[in-house]
């Protein structure tokens, strides 16, 4: 009897000890933790998908969502947003936001009613705010869908101007760039989450990327618009700019205007510096710069469709829509490629997980 008791006690102790050990060590949260995620839009050649490249660049894996869940995400995968342990994957033609664990990529659910051509999502508390282009035939029905992230249902909508694209939250307000969907637009919407009041700020044509800099200013990249004649020949472009906006006065405090014909499409913010492109050339300026740069830091290869920066590494996506795309990582100091990986079809965005 005694021995039995003793053994039981020992067993219990072992279990406790083992569990203690488990708790004390930082176990990996999933296969896709420490690495870079790349989302690809997909095309007729294959589904929109997510690729993973480990932090040390040793391992890489494509179609991770499909591998884990045995289903495809469809086309066109526009964007991904993270919040705590979740990834929110927005696929526009599927009118779907799929929710997955950001580290294991196991599907947790999806929002597939109430969205019409969704583009980006911002998560605030237990609510998701999804920009939607609405019907392609109308440029007055565009909206922000307010999603309850516990039920995965669209609870209400906020009507906004044509072609809402990126959306970020700051201090109870949502900031939305209006790239203009199928046509064009030139505003940033500022939406008060509580009152749902919408105020528009006019910027240069086709605003897309936006973020807050260290000075608390909203920085917006407007790509400019291409002008066609009635026969659809290109007859010119409107001016592009990087605009800094004071969010209290809603005034543009600093506007860096590009030369005529230059159409930047990508912009990232890293460590007080703004990186942007014109075609395949990547430039960098300080966040408080008063003029644009005249010398590029890196000349990229192929079709530059995605950009990120971390330390000395410039991550670029050379997108292909008929095949896998390429992730080329450049060393900013040397200007040359150090790592290349095959990634998703139509690769467009890079996320550090």
């Amino acid at each position, binding site marked *: 009897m005694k021995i039995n008791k003793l053994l039981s006690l020992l067993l219990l102790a072992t279990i406790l000890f083992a569990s203690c050990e488990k708790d004390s060590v930082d176990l990996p949260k999933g296969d896709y933790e420490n690495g870079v995620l790349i989302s690809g839009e997909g*095309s007729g050649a294959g589904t929109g998908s997510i690729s993973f490249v480990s932090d040390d660049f040793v391992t890489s894996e494509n179609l991770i969502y499909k591998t884990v869940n045995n289903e*495809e995400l469809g086309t066109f995968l526009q964007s991904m947003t993270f919040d705590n342990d979740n990834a929110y994957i927005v696929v526009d033609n599927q009118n*779907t936001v799929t929710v997955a664990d950001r580290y294991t990529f196991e599907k947790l659910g999806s929002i597939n009613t109430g969205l019409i051509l969704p583009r980006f999502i911002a998560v605030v508390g237990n609510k998701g705010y999804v920009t939607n282009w609405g019907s*392609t*035939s109308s440029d007055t029905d565009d909206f922000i869908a307010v999603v309850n992230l516990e039920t995965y249902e669209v609870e209400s909508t906020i009507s906004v101007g044509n072609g809402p694209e990126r959306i970020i939250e700051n201090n109870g307000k949502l900031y939305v760039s209006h790239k203009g969907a199928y046509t064009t637009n030139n505003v940033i919407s500022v939406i008060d989450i509580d009152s749902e009041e919408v105020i528009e700020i006019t910027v240069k044509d086709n605003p897309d990327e936006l973020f807050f800099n260290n000075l608390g200013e909203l920085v917006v990249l407007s790509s400019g618009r*291409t002008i066609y004649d009635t026969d659809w020949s290109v007859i010119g472009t409107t001016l592009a700019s990087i605009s800094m906006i004071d969010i209290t006065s809603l005034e543009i405090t600093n506007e860096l205007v590009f030369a005529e014909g230059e159409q930047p499409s990508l912009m990232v913010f890293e460590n007080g510096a703004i990186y942007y492109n014109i075609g395949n050339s990547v430039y960098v300026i300080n966040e408080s710069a008063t003029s644009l740069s005249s010398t590029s830091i890196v000349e990229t290869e*192929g079709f530059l469709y995605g950009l990120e920066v971390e330390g000395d590494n410039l991550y670029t996506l050379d*997108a292909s*829509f*008929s095949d896998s795309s390429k992730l080329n990582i450049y060393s900013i100091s040397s200007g040359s490629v150090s790592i290349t990986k095959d990634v998703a079809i139509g690769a467009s965005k890079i996320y550090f997980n």
Partner: protein
Amino acid sequence: MGRPITRRKPGDLPVFLTIKTFGIKVNVNMKRLILFAIFFIVTNSILSQNDSIKNILDEVIVVADKRIAKNSKGYKITTLNDSILLKNTESFTSLLRFNSPIYLKEYGAGGTSTASFRGTSASNTAVVWNGININSINNGQTGFNSLTVSLFDQISIRSGGGSIEYGSGAIGGTIHLNDELKYQPKKTISNQFIASLGSFDTFNALHKFKMYADNFSLKIGFSYNQSQNDYKLLGTDYKNFNGAYKNLNINVSLGHRFSTLSQIKFYSTSYAAERFFSGELPNPTSANEKYKDYNNRNLLVYTYDDKKISHELKFGFLTQEYQYFEDKNSTEFNFGKSKRYITNYSFSYQLQELKAVVTSYSEYESIFGKTDQILEKNRRQFSQSILYNQNLANAVFFDAKIRKDFNSDYKVPLSFALGIKSKKINNLFVRANASKNYRVPTYNDLYWPGQGNTDLIPEIALQGEFGVVFKNNILSIDMSVFYINAENKIVWTPNGDPERPGIWTPINLTNTENKGIEVALNFKENFKNHFVDFNLTYGYTEAKNKETQTYLIFVPKHLLNNNLSYRYKKYGFFYEQLFTGKTFTTESNSKDFIVPSFYVANIGSYYKIYNYKEKQISIGFRVNNIFNELYVTQPRRPMPNRNFKLNINYKF
């Protein structure tokens, strides 16, 4: 508001182009057509009363296009007669899939569907209506779910280049939709009515009326199809969403012969359809598109044909229109329209001492095409071709053809073709053909707003084929090898214009090489009221990009179909099956992106309730996909699960 022409969703565009661009409109006044028909009948009955030419006794079958039968030496032609066409009334796509060596790519059952021969592209397949190439001027293709074919008397499928007779694009092969008219001494009137009901609220009905007389022939047909097409998407909880379709087709053919030498024929067809484009997984309910299309085709042919000399004059007028609603609930749509005027004169002269015939074809065509985004363009083309065919000592028969086009938009290369066939010895003969074909850029390729490329040059393909044929009364086997070398293939790519990366533009990009083997077997035997008919088609295709040596996308290496039918007195039975090999969908042939191989089979039977010469009634039953196989021809679009069809066929 306009289409996106920025690089918003680059992946979207080529699919969009494929989806968008076939269409047709009934803008000829139907009333006028009927009046014309009535006029003809009345005129005819008057004429026939005083007609002095009563010496015509033989039954004669006439077609609008004699070239397919006359000038195809050395080519393989698969013929589907009306009994096969009427067995499969609802889908041209599935008819071809089970009965021809053609690969069909379908965006879900009833959705956009394109066809390709021997690993060539969809725009290399020409669909020919009574001798006229009817591929869309906008995208150079025919949508195989935008046509109903059950009213035609015969479909011929000719593998191998046919640009000489049937114009641009016929690099892979041609599919001929033919109406037959008949003159016979005894006047007869016959009717046929077929109706069927099937799963997914599918309903088809067609009626054919035929009147044949000594020197007059009339054929009128109506067909109507509709379906909810909401089949279960196997392996999911969804149904095929937004896949409904309906279409109406009217065909009229008239012939009148003035004498044994001269006759006039008129063919007209009108088609109107409304379809919805179904959604794909993972969320099929996001589908919201609608597509309407209308087409009208008219052809008037006058023929004078004596033994030595023949003349033929043709006038054609064809219109097409499509309307594409990205949002089915909206009244806004994108459209494309085209009008074509064709005049064709051919003259042939028989060199009796040489056992040869020389034929000249001259054709002038004027095409007006526009879309909501492309202002109306007019393309004019004059083409001249010379054909020479000869019988050499009853041992070798050959056709030599050459064609030159003069096009208002660009230079078109000289094309030529040679077909040769040996005399049958011990039921065996050999055949061979070689040709140079081309495909001119389409309106979309050239003029798509902000993206078209007016510097494109035509694709050119050189090809050759050699076959051995065994044929006796019960068995025929055709085995052939083919080779196609295509250059400057037009490809849409986001890197097409180095000045504007990210903008999808078409360029003359790839050179490809296709080679393979085709086998066609037919076995027919009749013993003591037991009638067996067995057909088998097998194609092995290796189609590669010459630079990268990778396989072309959406080309299966193996394609096999066969069907067996058995008849005993009043009973009939058939079984048909299809195997399609896997296809790659990316240029690098990534194993991550493939359409897997699939096998699917259908079964059916019928019973003749009445079987007299004057009156026949039969009822039939059909099960499609009897093994309930989950298969796709496009990723994320499961094809229909097992489904049923009941039909009645009444001839009187």
